[in-house]
């Protein structure tokens, strides 16, 4: 039932209505709205009941194991939410004077400094509102760098074929041509392909390391040398930082610019699709281009750094300073973890991934890169299973829902056929991993014994498989009364 179906003309939710009538009005008649608004007229209780019940239809970290590869679905500490939502923080206007926000600014400044340390970069700006915006801002800085040097013919960004879709999309959005390079059998970037692709037209290379194939790019130093020698810059997609936090600093690997998905590594919630936050960090030479505002600490006072302080900045990419409330959550998270806790994140994320990989392999699943260590995630391929039984990765994914587990990422990276990208994250216990393995084993048996049942999964969810094709063909994007 849709919220609109709880609506009745004339129903009133009076505790939200003002107790006085607005007397004054001075707007020309032709500017006044005449058409109705299709908002529900529902009671407060019906609204609360409707959305409470809707919420129960979601799988979530708070209710299920959610091993969605590349997404780092780890526990979102409740304290981060509570403390970011303290009434004064919520009430603070973005344009309120700096001296009325020293508490807030202190948190932002410290977060900036901590992220610099963690990434090994020379400067950090907190403004990007998600990974993809971090990428855009990063690539914009690469562009600004080349332009400032009068180096105008660099028109290409190199992206491995395993890269996340946002990488090529970002390069294009920033006006570059994308050159995709292949992956070798071991899951590394094909070095020959890289060498062939690099040239004076190369503005930069975007790399995710550990890659979305779940392995550490061993040749990263070599790659860095190749690209730098050609005058290009190196971009680090930090979406997988959870795998190496405290172990490797992207700065040490030779990267010039990086974004970090706080909604992954720093455990701010995914919120059913956001908001995220993706601070960018840069090496020395890109410092002048960082987006504003940033926060400075001078003589005991925190203040915004704006265009005046950073004259070569690529500018502003959000009306204020990005997703401040998300940044507050991340700040609380790092303070809770502290330096020791930060180191442990990658250790246990890696332990969990390698353990689950080992167990699933023993259970009979084919691992995409069996000779490699898993980073914090790894890939199972159902290529053989599909050939033998017709059961696809998507079928298995849906069957997992029936068993109370969110499905891993399917069909990404695209180069691995029938793949499941599995990321357990460090906050899950061995028991949960063992139970998941048991469920996967059960499905393996089901695939042999009742493949049609698996193909028509899910069966125990409130809805059965949904028709995507119909959705796209017969577009129904808004409810009509």
């Amino acid at each position, binding site marked *: 039932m849709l919220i609109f179906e709880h609506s009745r003309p004339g129903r009133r939710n009076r505790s939200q209505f003002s107790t006085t009538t607005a007397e004054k009005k001075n707007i020309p008649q032709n500017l006044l709205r005449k058409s109705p*608004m299709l908002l529900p007229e529902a009671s407060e209780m019906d609204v609360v009941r409707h959305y409470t019940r809707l919420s*129960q239809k979601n799988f979530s970290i708070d209710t299920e194991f959610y091993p969605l590869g590349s997404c780092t679905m780890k526990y979102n500490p409740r304290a981060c939410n509570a403390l970011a939502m303290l009434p004064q923080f919520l009430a603070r206007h973005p344009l309120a004077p700096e001296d009325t926000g020293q508490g807030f600014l202190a948190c932002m400044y410290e977060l900036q400094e901590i992220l610099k340390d963690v990434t090994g970069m020379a400067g950090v700006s907190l403004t990007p509102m998600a990974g993809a915006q971090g990428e855009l801002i990063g690539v914009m800085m690469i562009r600004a760098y080349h332009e400032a040097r009068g180096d105008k013919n660099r028109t290409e960004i190199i992206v491995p074929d395993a890269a996340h879709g946002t990488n090529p999309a970002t390069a294009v959005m920033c006006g570059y041509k994308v050159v995709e390079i292949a992956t070798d059998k071991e899951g590394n970037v094909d070095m020959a392909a890289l060498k062939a692709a690099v040239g004076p037209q190369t503005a930069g290379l975007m790399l995710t390391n550990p890659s979305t194939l779940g392995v550490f790019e061993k040749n990263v130093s070599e790659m860095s040398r190749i690209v730098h020698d050609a005058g290009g810059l190196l971009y680090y997609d930090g979406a997988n930082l959870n795998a190496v936090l405290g172990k490797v600093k992207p700065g040490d690997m030779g990267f010039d610019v990086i974004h970090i998905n706080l909604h992954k590594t720093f455990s701010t919630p995914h919120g059913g699709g956001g908001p995220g936050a993706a601070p960018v960090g840069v090496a020395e030479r890109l410092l002048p281009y960082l987006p504003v505002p940033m926060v400075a600490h001078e003589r005991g006072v925190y203040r915004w750094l704006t265009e005046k302080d950073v004259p070569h900045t690529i500018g502003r990419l959000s009306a204020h300073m990005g997703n401040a409330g998300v940044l507050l959550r991340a700040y609380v998270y790092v303070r809770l973890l502290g330096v020791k806790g930060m180191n442990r994140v990658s250790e246990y994320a890696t332990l969990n991934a390698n353990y689950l990989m080992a167990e699933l392999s023993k259970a009979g699943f084919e691992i995409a890169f069996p000779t490699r260590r898993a980073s914090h995630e790894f890939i199972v391929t159902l290529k053989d299973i599909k050939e033998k039984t017709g059961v696809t990765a998507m079928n298995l994914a849906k069957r997992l829902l029936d068993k109370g587990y969110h499905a891993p990422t399917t069909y990404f990276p695209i180069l691995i056929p029938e793949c499941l990208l599995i990321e357990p994250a460090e906050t899950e216990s061995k028991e949960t991993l063992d139970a998941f393995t048991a469920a996967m084993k059960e499905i393996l048996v089901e695939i042999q014994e009742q493949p049609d049942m698996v193909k028509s999964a899910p069966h125990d969810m409130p809805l059965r498989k949904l028709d995507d094709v*119909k959705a796209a063909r017969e577009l129904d994007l808004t409810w009509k009364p």
Partner: protein
Amino acid sequence: MPFIPHTEEDVKEMLASIGASSIEELFDEIPPDLKTGALTCVPPGMSEMEISRLMLERAQADGFYLSFIGAGAYEHHIPAAVWQITTRGEFYSSYTPYQAEASQGTLQLLYEYQTMMASLTGMDVSNASLYDGATALAEAALMAVRQHKTSRRILVPRTVHPAYRKVLSAIVRNQDIEVVEIPFCPESGQVLLEHLEPFGQEDFAALVIPQPNFFGVLEQVDAMTDWAHAKHSSVIAVVNPMSLAMLVPPGEWGTQGADIAVGEGQPLGIPLSSGGPYFGFMTCKHDLVRQMPGRIIGRTVDLDNKPGFVLTLQAREQHIRRSKATSNICTNQGLMVTAATIYMSLLGPEGLRQVAAQSHANMLQLAEQLEQLPGVKRVYSGPCFHEVALTLPRPVNEILQALKEQGILGGLNLQEHYPELENALLVCATETKTADDLNKYSEMLGKILKKYG
């Protein structure tokens, strides 16, 4: 080690299964020379009790003020139910609803949101959010350029929010799109046809129309829309969604309506929160839907023909289309949209109308009171929604400082963004302000002005 459940026993068993002798060994593929030196700026961990105390102290240090600042972020009452439901774990800690069968909660909510926003703006379709109002404007510009095919010029009045214009330029210049600024009438505070005409000689992809504009003034949207359409260009509306409870929606501007409407969703139940997270909304005419960036939810059926919801038109998006996507956006502002949908449901059409009307009335009342003070007058003659530009007889920063000492944030110094506007202050009053609040402001300002003589 907070949030890590492993016992020593667990670790031993797990390593045995893997066949590794230590956790460190699992990192053996990382070249040793890359291994990080110690983190030196990360402080030791705090307990939840300690960080709670620290944050509480910082929050208290920041305190509360009686604020009359608007300028794109507005204080409205947010019903208690909104965030109590929004922060339920099932909404808060779920991912983008890729697995439709396990995400009907979020998906249905987004479909309801799309319906509400399309109706509010008078457009056909809505996406499921963009980052914020400013980036939504930039995406709209890119969309209009893709649609227009020949021109890469976008006309943007100087009455559009200065930060939006900055963001727009920063983003679109990468694709060699030209942003052309249009002047406005210094008397009315509006863009008149005479200001547009000179820029219409050459082709342009879209005209941006803010309503209300940055000064709180209402633009002559019908004339502007028709003018742009006559030149075969698109119209991008930048609107405050709250104002649409009173004002003609973009879909009905002029004879054909705007083509794309975008704006900042913050007024719909999102706390001010130092500037974010908010959310950008975007709605458009049906024939532009395949140009739209971001997630879109569609209604469909399951194998048993039961209705359900899925992400649709994914072929526009980066995870499918990669370099050919309409935008690089992936993670959006889902949770904020959750809050906004609950907010709109709790207020309903009548509630939203009342908030808008009360805000408007409070602004008029405040302006009237302030204008009675010596040397205070309205800058512009155009009608306003809930914000108004005033000229003061003294430098604005001095006055703001004095007001702040009384616990009042008096507004925004307009000169920061418009050098020509000397001593001009942008003041906002929403429904949250009582008669006492308005009196307190006018009395205090009166006293301050008197003190300066």
